[in-house]
């Protein structure tokens, strides 16, 4: 509400009625100041952005269940025949570009601009799902500004089954993410190839489609995930791997303890128990199961992972739906430095030896 005065100082409120003449003295109401105060300045607008931005890099944005989430902004960065920019997708023309360095040199500014103009920095959290074998991965990770805190890189890494050039790109992409200070959760290609889950919504999902429910869990618990990774970073641990069991039930696994032990054989990269520096558990389960999970996790850590630097767990009680006896467990492991790209080193060196430009140092 604002007031408009007449020449003699009598006020009228613009929320009741406006007149040319003052109702008290009949003199003219003065509108110049009212225009100045109320029309010259633009109103403030509070913008609302989704809590999490998930960006698929070198991967199609192929998850309806993720995209429909109102708390989530999903987009993808792809390579195609021509350049195209929308809010959901940026496609970079492959003309004349084959190696990661070609894309990096040609599109760094363009992609950084797209990221700023779609407001990638506006969400409080960012999850980058990157196929690091793809040449576009290095460019995309380099284009993310270092100042964008709360950014997690889920890196699909090359392995011994990947070509040497893929290993080289994967190595440089992971190195770029780490140089930027972003925590990396590594998931190997072989791990994804063997992924198989049953989900209530999608039924049986395999390979990359089976990664989507894991991403969904990461997104739905993003505050805890970021806290866990932040704590690891403070301990100097920036590399991570995961293991997951989805739609589990005590009918399949005899006990929660046996289920936790089974996780050791399903790390997302080629790691051993001795490589684990920290462990964090995200449990999505009915309340009574959560109690058992908490106890089993404490026992498991005490007995099986005596040397870990830190352990954490977060519980998310499931809703009261009939299927609520099923539960999901997601473990995030902080691992020793260099383990993520250890297997990629020889492939990287071979290519960098042949073409010195394709080395990590070329990425600013």
């Amino acid at each position, binding site marked *: 509400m604002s007031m408009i005065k007449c020449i003699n100082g009598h006020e009228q409120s613009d929320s009741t009625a*406006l007149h040319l003449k003052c109702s008290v003295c009949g003199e*003219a109401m003065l509108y110049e100041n009212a225009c100045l105060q109320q029309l010259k300045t*633009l109103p403030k607008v509070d913008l609302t952005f989704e809590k999490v931005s998930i960006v698929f890099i070198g991967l199609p944005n192929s998850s309806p269940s993720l995209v429909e989430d109102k708390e989530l902004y999903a987009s993808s960065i792809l390579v195609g025949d021509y350049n195209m920019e929308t809010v959901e997708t940026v496609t970079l023309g492959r003309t004349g570009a084959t190696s990661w360095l070609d894309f990096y040199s040609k599109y760094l500014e363009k992609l950084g601009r797209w990221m700023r103009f779609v407001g990638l920095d506006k969400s409080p959290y960012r999850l980058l799902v990157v196929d690091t074998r793809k040449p576009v991965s290095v460019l995309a990770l380099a284009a993310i500004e270092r100042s964008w805190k709360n950014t997690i890189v889920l890196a699909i890494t090359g392995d011994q089954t990947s070509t040497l050039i893929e290993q080289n790109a994967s190595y440089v992409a992971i190195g770029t993410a780490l140089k930027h200070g972003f925590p990396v959760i590594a998931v190997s290609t072989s791990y994804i190839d063997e992924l198989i889950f049953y989900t209530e919504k999608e039924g049986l999902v395999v390979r990359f489609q089976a990664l989507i429910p894991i991403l969904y869990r990461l997104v739905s618990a993003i505050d805890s995930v970021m806290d866990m990774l932040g704590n690891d970073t403070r301990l100097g641990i920036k590399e991570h791997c995961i293991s997951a069991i989805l739609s589990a039930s005590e009918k399949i696994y005899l006990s929660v303890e046996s289920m936790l032990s089974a996780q050791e054989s399903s790390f997302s990269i080629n790691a051993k128990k001795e490589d684990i520096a920290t462990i964090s558990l995200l449990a999505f389960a009915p309340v009574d199961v959560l109690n058992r999970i908490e106890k089993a996790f404490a026992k498991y850590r005490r007995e099986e992972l005596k040397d870990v630097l830190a352990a954490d767990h977060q519980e998310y009680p499931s809703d009261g739906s009939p299927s609520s006896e099923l539960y999901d467990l997601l473990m995030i492991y902080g691992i020793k430095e260099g383990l993520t790209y250890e297997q990629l080193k020889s492939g990287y060196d071979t290519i960098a030896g042949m073409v010195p430009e394709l080395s990590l140092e070329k990425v600013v």
Partner: protein
Amino acid sequence: MSEATFNLDLVKYEGKVHKRCILSVNEERKEAKILETKNRIFFTNRQVYFLNKQVSLLTITTDASTTVEVQGRSVTVNKDILLEARDQGESSKIAELFSRPRKEAELKSRQMLLGAEGSIRGFLKIREEALCFLANLRRNPRKTMLELSSTLGEGLTGDPVEAMTRLYSERLAKSWDDLISSLSGIEMQVGKDRTNRLYAVTYFIGKLQDAFFEGKDPTKLEMLKGFGLELGFDETIFVGLSQKNANDGLLDLFRNIRLIDFSENSSALIAPVKTG
């Protein structure tokens, strides 16, 4: 040509009639001189000489306040000076010269009023654009931001929303300055009341923009309707408003309406007048 001369058959001024006069109009100096031809007779060496001498009779300043009436060969200037030209063609030319300063002043005044109206529309147009931008930004921030990509220069390194908001604020401030300068320019000419009325018209349309930006509160619109009618807008405007649901194109409703009435006999001079 800055000076024109006419022979007059007679000049009637302050109740006296003067015959055989010459009118000389100097446009640059904005003055007209009337000279009377006097006959003088000289006697020398038993001879008689006739001499015509021109004596200054009157000087008239020609300005915007000079009034002229023409009837046949007669031209009446400022209601009390009658000039009779040799023929009707000459009387028309004389009248045209005397009325030129007034016509020029009227033209200038009309241009200033047009400029004032243009500056009001310009200010409100920029405001409409800015509010549309903010409304789109509020509704679909990422899409609106990406659309800015072509508007803002390649070299932009900062936040695009801040950059665009700053750009609109600067444009709005500049057009406000134009509006102020334009309205204070006509204040001497039209008076403070009428200038204030123009601010009121600006405020009225600005408040309509605000109502649409805030989601069109019907109570507020009803209150604004009363003010709009008081300002002279007719009901058809409000029919158009009731069919709108966004700021975009709001000013189009006022496109065929003059915010300033130029008609000479208008009691208000400044009032919304429908033109088409």
